[in-house]
């Protein structure tokens, strides 16, 4: 599954439903694949418990008004 996401195939199914010329779609997939490599690297170091709300918690905990 991870490979399918990182080569853009899964997400590109959604893009394919749009009326996007092939050359632009290829550029979009290429850019998404580049970002996906970073996501894969970051995911390796991420604990299972990491949560999208951690960001708000850190912001308010570290507040220096």
């Amino acid at each position, binding site marked *: 599954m991870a490979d399918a996401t990182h080569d853009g195939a899964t*997400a590109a199914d959604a893009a394919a439903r*749009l009326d996007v010329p092939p050359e632009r*779609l290829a550029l*979009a997939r290429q*850019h998404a694949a580049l970002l996906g490599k*970073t*996501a894969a690297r970051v995911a390796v170091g991420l604990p299972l418990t990491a949560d999208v709300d*951690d960001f*708000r918690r850190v912001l308010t905990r570290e507040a220096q008004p």
Partner: protein
Amino acid sequence: MIDLAELSALRLAAAIREGKVSSLEATEAALERLRAADARTGCVIALEADEARAAAKAADAARAKGESGGALAGVPLAHKDMFDRRGKVASWGAKIRADRAAAEDATAIARLKAAGALQIAALHLAEFAYGPTGHNYVLGHARNPWDPSRITGGSSSGTAAAVACGAIAAGLGSDTGGSLRLPAACCGIVSLKPTWGRVSRAGAMPLSPSLDTIGVLARHVEDLALMLRLIAGPDARDPAAVALPVADYVARLDDPVSGVRFGIDEALLADAHPGVQSKVEEAAGILGALGMVRGPCRFADWQTLDHLVQLVQLPEASAAHAAFLHTRADDYGPQVRARVEVGHCIGAVDHLTALRARGGVLQRVLAETFRDIDIAVLPVLADPLPRLADLDIGGGARVQSAMGRVVAYTRPINYLGLPTLSLPVPRGGGLPNGVQLIARPFAEARLLAIGRAYQRLVPPEIAHVL
């Protein structure tokens, strides 16, 4: 004789309160300057002269009756045209727009109105606030007030140009990847991107809700302080607006800045044009002259930050635009269309990874980058003020790389959500540019005190149009 173009909103409000000038006189003068600014820069989408005059007369009548009014009673302002206003349809800088008039004001607009401010115009922005240069392929490109062949920066292009021309003292904008800081730097004014969650986004056009931040552009730092004090705070209409107390930023403008520690990531700065590097060092010299102390500063992995912020922004913008992209794709300008297409190619797992990693990344940046400093200093633009023609690339193959270069120093900061003040570097008769000062969460009062002290040495300037 009061020069109304030079006054800050804070001082204009005092002059109106003291009867030295009427709101109607101030509004007529602002309308005249705004017409001239628009002729030079294309900063206006809709001039609302009749409504502005009626509101000014009402403000003068209220003062004559002894009513105290608010902190901005009778002061003419104008804002980026992306905020709901009851009974009006915001343009969003687009051909595609809301299909019905707003039922109520955006929270930031309502709070300024409650303080007595007038809105005299709706101002230019990049299409859907999705562009960092001021190009708009639907409404026409904004032009820089100092040199109309150059960019204004975007997406809050109209507010920046109008403020720089002295048409208005201040106005609202938004920042998802640099949209307050870039136009402020390009137009030679100041801006404050508050901490994410400090200001309610309710009623503002969403682009990427995890990043979108409402803020202020002005010539005088004291107006950033006043307007932030008015618009900040919790809001039942925006659950992300935090309940932390709002400081009296105006009262704290004269907080001491001597001894405040700042740093510049010199490896990161080396990626900028040499002319920009020298301007940043010049600004650092000014901070040193204020008694601030330079220390070590290093962002561990800037490129990772830049990729993570794109993994958040691109799919969120694409999701927001999915309905229009499926039904009205041909009504987009080429650049925004190309950008909203990219987000559809990013997988949900990658998007969620970027969001789940965000808290830990912020924690590390605070522990490491800010270990020995209070303020990180970076350029706003990597290059000297670009020409409009050089970045007039539509939706072509260069979009990601060219836009990426424009936002290279601004976009990653949105991932961190940190408050950021943009200050103009001394022009020395040349073109404007700027530096950004990044602080710990909710340290806006400290940033504003530094900005106020900085402006004693680098006073605000006006690009005169009359």
